[in-house]
C-alpha cells in the first residue's frame, strides 16, 4: 500500500515537471477540434448560450427566483465542465493507447492534459456566462472573488476523478456508455436549472444529497447571493481528499499494468 502511494507520488511529480508537455498538447487538442471551422472555439460560447436560452425561455423552473438566468448560467458552467470531463475521462487511456504503448510518459500527464483541456474549454464558457449575467442585470461585486478558492478546490478535485474514470474505462469498456448515460441523466437530477423546491421530498433530497450540487454552489452562491459558500467548500474539499485517497493507490498499482489491457 505504502509502495503504491510512493509510486503514485513519483508519477505525479514527474508529470508536474513535464507541464510543458500537457499544456502544449491540451491547446493542440482544442485547436484540432475546431481547426477547420470558421468560428473556432467560439462555438463553445454559442453552444453554451443556446443551452442557457432554452433553460431560461422554455424550462423556467425558477419558481419566481430573481435572477434565474444567473442561477442557470453558473450552474451550467460548472456542470458542463464536470460532465464533459468525466465523459472524456472514461475513454482517456483507450484513446491514448498509442502514446502509452510507445512512450514512457508518466500516466498522470494524460490526466493533467485532460484537466487542462477542460479548463480551456471552461474559459470560453465563462465568457458566455458573463454575457448572461450582465444581461441579467447583476453588477460585479467583490464577493465574486470567493469564486477563486472554489475554482482552486475544483481544480484540486478533478485530477483524481480523471484517473479513476480512466482506469474504469480501460478495465471495464462498457462503463463508457454507463457514464455517458449517467451524465445525461445527471443534468436533470442535479440542480443545474431547477431550484430546490423546499417542500417536495424527492427533489429536495436530490438537491441536498447530490455532491454535484455543492460543486455548482462553489460558483453560484458568491455570484448570485454574494455569500461565502462555506458548506460547498467543505463538501467539495472533503470529497476531493477522498477522491485522491482512492486515486493514488489505483495509480500506483495500475500505472504499469494498464498498458497490458489497452
Amino acid at each position, binding site marked *: 500500500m505504502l509502495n503504491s502511494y510512493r509510486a503514485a507520488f513519483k508519477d505525479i511529480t514527474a508529470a508536474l515537471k513535464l507541464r510543458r508537455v500537457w499544456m*502544449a498538447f491540451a491547446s*493542440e487538442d482544442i485547436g*484540432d477540434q475546431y481547426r477547420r471551422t470558421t468560428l473556432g472555439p467560439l462555438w463553445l460560447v454559442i453552444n453554451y448560450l443556446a443551452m442557457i436560452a432554452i433553460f431560461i425561455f422554455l424550462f423556467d423552473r425558477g419558481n419566481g427566483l430573481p435572477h434565474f438566468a444567473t442561477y442557470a448560467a453558473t450552474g451550467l458552467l460548472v456542470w458542463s465542465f464536470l460532465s464533459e470531463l468525466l465523459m472524456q475521462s472514461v475513454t482517456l487511456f483507450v484513446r491514448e493507447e*498509442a502514446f502509452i*504503448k510507445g512512450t514512457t510518459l508518466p500516466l498522470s500527464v494524460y490526466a493533467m492534459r485532460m484537466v487542462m483541456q477542460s479548463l480551456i474549454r471552461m474559459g470560453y464558457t465563462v465568457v458566455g456566462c458573463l454575457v448572461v449575467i450582465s444581461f441579467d442585470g447583476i453588477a460585479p461585486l467583490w464577493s465574486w472573488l470567493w469564486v477563486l478558492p472554489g475554482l482552486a478546490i475544483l481544480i484540486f478535485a478533478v485530477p483524481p476523478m480523471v484517473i479513476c474514470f480512466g482506469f474504469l474505462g480501460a478495465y471495464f469498456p462498457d462503463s463508457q456508455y454507463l457514464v455517458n448515460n449517467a451524465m445525461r441523466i445527471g443534468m436533470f437530477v442535479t440542480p443545474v436549472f431547477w431550484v430546490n423546491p423546499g417542500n417536495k421530498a424527492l427533489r429536495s433530497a436530490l438537491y441536498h444529497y447530490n455532491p454535484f450540487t455543492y460543486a455548482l454552489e462553489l460558483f453560484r452562491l458568491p455570484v448570485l447571493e454574494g455569500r461565502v459558500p462555506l458548506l460547498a467548500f467543505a463538501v467539495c474539499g472533503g470529497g476531493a481528499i477522498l477522491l485522491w485517497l482512492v486515486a493514488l493507490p489505483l495509480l500506483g498499482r495500475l500505472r504499469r499494468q494498464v498498458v497490458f*489491457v489497452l
Partner: protein
Amino acid sequence: MVFIHADNVRLSYTVRQKLSLAWPRRRLEATGGRIVSKGRHHTVTALDGISFDIAAGDRLGLVGSNGSGKTTLLKVLYGIFEPTAGRIETHGRADALFNISLGFRKEATGRRNIVLRGLVNGWTPDEIESRMDAIIDFSELGEFIDLPFKAYSQGMSARLAFSVATSLEPEILLMDEWIGAGDASFQEKAKKRMAAIAEKAGIIVLASHNTSLLQRTCNKILELEKGRVKYFGDAEEWFAKNTEA
C-alpha cells in the same frame, strides 16, 4: 559509462477477458505453449530468463520469428513494460523509434510536431529551438516542414521521426524495423548517423528481419525463440552459422 545489463528478465502478463456485459463467446483453443489459460484469464509469458550484457559501442541485433519477443524486449529496455521478475539496468539517455508515426499529430505542421516530440522527450524549449534547423536539414523535408503532418508520405514521416529521435545524440537508441520506409539516399544517411552514435560510445539495439541490414550494422546478435534466448554473442559467428544452414 553507457551499458545495458539484463539479469534473468521475465515478463508475463495476464490478458484479462475484459469485464463486459456481452454474452461470453465460445472459447478458442490457445495456440502455442506460451499461453496459460485459467478461466477468463490468459497468462502470456512474453520473455523468460533473458540475461545479457552490452557495453558502450555495441550494436545489438535482435532477431527471431514473429512473436518471439523482440519488440517486447525493446519496450522493456525503454521502460514501457516493467519486468515481472529479474533485473534490468540501463545506463544512458535512451531514445526509441518503435512506430514511425507515433506521437505525431496529423493536423499539426512538421515544425510543431518537432516541438511536441521534443517536449515529450523532455527537452527544454531552448534545446528544441537550437536543434530545430539541424533536424529540418537532416530530414530534407524542405518546405514541407510547414505543412500539416497528414500531407506527408510514409517515407517523409520516417525521415522526420528518425531525425528527431537521433538529433539529441541518444546514448542508447532502440529501433524496431523502422528502416522499411525512407528511400535509399536517406537510408544511407541514417546508417552513417547510427554509426556515428555507436562511435561516440553509444549503444544501438535494432530489431529486424532484414539480414543484410543486421549484417551491416550489428556486431552482436541476440536471437529469441518463444521469449527465451536462443543465441547471444558475436554477430559474425551467428551469421556464419545461419548462412551455412
